[in-house]
């Protein structure tokens, strides 16, 4: 990692889900770990999330969805990133994600899925080890 610049994370709630306890706890934990975190608030479209990530020059996009809409929303974010030629943002997902959906999400380019009960330190460490640009 280069010196001087903090890892920048865009935390986002795609879709209509209003459960934001988890993402807010993760925002606080990432900030405590020295990262810069921008939280988009609720009800972001995939387009808005990508636009915000580019505008904020984010190294990581961390999305949370507990409504079951992840199979549409998470891959759609990856599609838009690809359309824009962005390949160096680490994209993570979290929420109520059934086992059988994980291979499809990873094939779409989501680097890792974190589910209920995850220790926030594991997320911090994962980001530090896998962040692509920085």
């Amino acid at each position, binding site marked *: 990692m280069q010196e001087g610049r903090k890892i920048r994370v865009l935390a986002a709630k795609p*879709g*209509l*889900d*209003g*459960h*934001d*306890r988890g993402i*807010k*706890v993760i*925002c*606080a*934990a990432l900030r405590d770990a020295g990262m810069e975190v*921008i*939280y*988009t*608030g*609720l*009800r972001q*479209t995939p387009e808005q999330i990508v636009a915000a990530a580019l505008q904020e020059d984010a190294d990581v996009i961390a999305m949370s969805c507990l*409504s*079951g*809409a*992840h*199979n*549409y*929303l998470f891959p759609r974010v990856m599609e838009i990133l690809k359309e824009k030629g962005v390949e160096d943002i680490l994209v993570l997902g979290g929420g*109520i994600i*059934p*086992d059988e959906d994980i291979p499809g999400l990873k094939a779409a380019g989501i680097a890792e899925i974190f*589910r*209920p*009960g995850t*220790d*926030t*330190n594991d997320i911090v460490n994962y980001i530090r080890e896998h962040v692509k640009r920085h």
Partner: protein
Amino acid sequence: MDEQKLRDLKAQYEAAVAKVLQKMPERRAQFVNSSGIPIERVYTPLDLQGWDYVEKLGMPGQYPFTRAVQPTAYRGRYWTMRQYAGFATAEETNKRYHFLLKSGQTGLSVAFDLPTQIGYDSDHELARGEVGKVGVAIDSLWDMERLFEGIPLDQVSTSMTINAPCAVILAMYLAVAEKQGVPFDQLRGTVQNDILKEYPARGTYIFGPRPSMRLITNIFEYCTKHVPQWNTISISGYHIREAGSTAVQEVAFTLANGIAYVQAAIDAGMQVDEFGPRLSFFFNSHLDFFEEIAKFRAARRLWAKIMKERFGAKDPRSMMLRFHTQTAGCSLTAQQPLNNIMRTAFEALAAVLGGTQSLHTNSFDEALALPSELAVQVALRTQQIIAYETAVCDTIDPLAGSYYIESLTDQIEAKAQEYIDKIDQMGGAVAAIEKGFIQKEIQESAYRYQREIEKGERIVVGLNKFQVKEEEKPADLLKVDPAVADRQIARLKELKASRDNAAVQRALAELKAAAEGDANLMPPILAAVKSLATLGEICDTLRAVFGEYQMAAM
């Protein structure tokens, strides 16, 4: 009682404890509950000095209703067993309702999908991926008729978890009743209709707080006249707690919201005793068993005082805090999911010992997916076992008089009152939400809870202790067919092709004119629903007048 004798006895005991502690310290240096209340080693009458039975408790069914709102409580009738359910299309949810009623459930509780809750039709761009996922998709009166097919509305009580577009969904329910030939005054049920907790906790707002408060008071006023047995609001702490608050914060923020609704209705020209008896509440039941029981009792007493002393209510029914309870979804783990059956059972027992009027017990697979039929049945059976097998319902408020429970009840009430005073000083609940105070308080508690788990200060069995390496996942998790969205969209097309579109436009224009003035919006919404205007069309009409709420990023 000889107080001096008791003091001497306690002093001897403390001396004996001090000796034991030298050899073997206790499990923790300090015992504190989620609300930050220190828990003593042992409680005695010394903890309740000056405590007056008549003033603090009274009798069941009597002010301040600490013991129960009804004089016979569960000796008369058990609580309503009401499982929150809804997914996919109206037809599929209707099948689940028939299954639940056949299994001995005594009331319905409708879960709507997110597009419905936020006032979008299933074909809206923002509805993509969400149709029929967390609840049933309702776009028009057609769907509502299918949802209650074969269920006579004068025979069930129906709770509907709907907030921002509450007036529209209630109007659809009334239109179904009309078609079934059921007079409005025979309808029993509840709409959540509680917008204030949506901003800090649940997130399904459409309009800002002020136009939303108008819609809410319009519903109060309309139901008082036309649907007199209907509970016009369910003022909800459940989601505040799920978002991470403590038990004290749950009581405080919920009752502060309640105060805002009562004040808004009074400001709109209503008398407190006209609408006060139809207000209802909704709480969470979490794992700290005694804290939860004390919380329910404290909430009852505090609300009775607020209604009597602050708002001058005269009708005792206005002072009764009647509430629904749901066990804590956030206490469930994805790890070793069968353990969730035990957690839910303890939480349900606390709700019953706290005197709930109705109860939803969570299904063990809910940290993994929507509940399967088997999991729902076990959850319902848990309630039935408490009611029919444990005999805890045979005497009213059985824990009253426990030094610990009464001391906790007093402390929770006092701490909640402190928060309410603080919120009053900020200008009330709406102002406190607009300032971000409530949100910040909840977030801090949520983060503290997570840190406690990660530091091992709070044990979650199967998560940070007693883990197993290879977990077996429950089979038969429920999955919503993605084709549900296509079916809903096809039905919308059919609706728009077959209805009288000129009549729809007229009804929407009348609604718009009413919204721009200050008339009660229920009659024009009911007219629009009956013209077969969709939920999205009606909400868009209101959006054009009221605007949409935007939450600030952080």
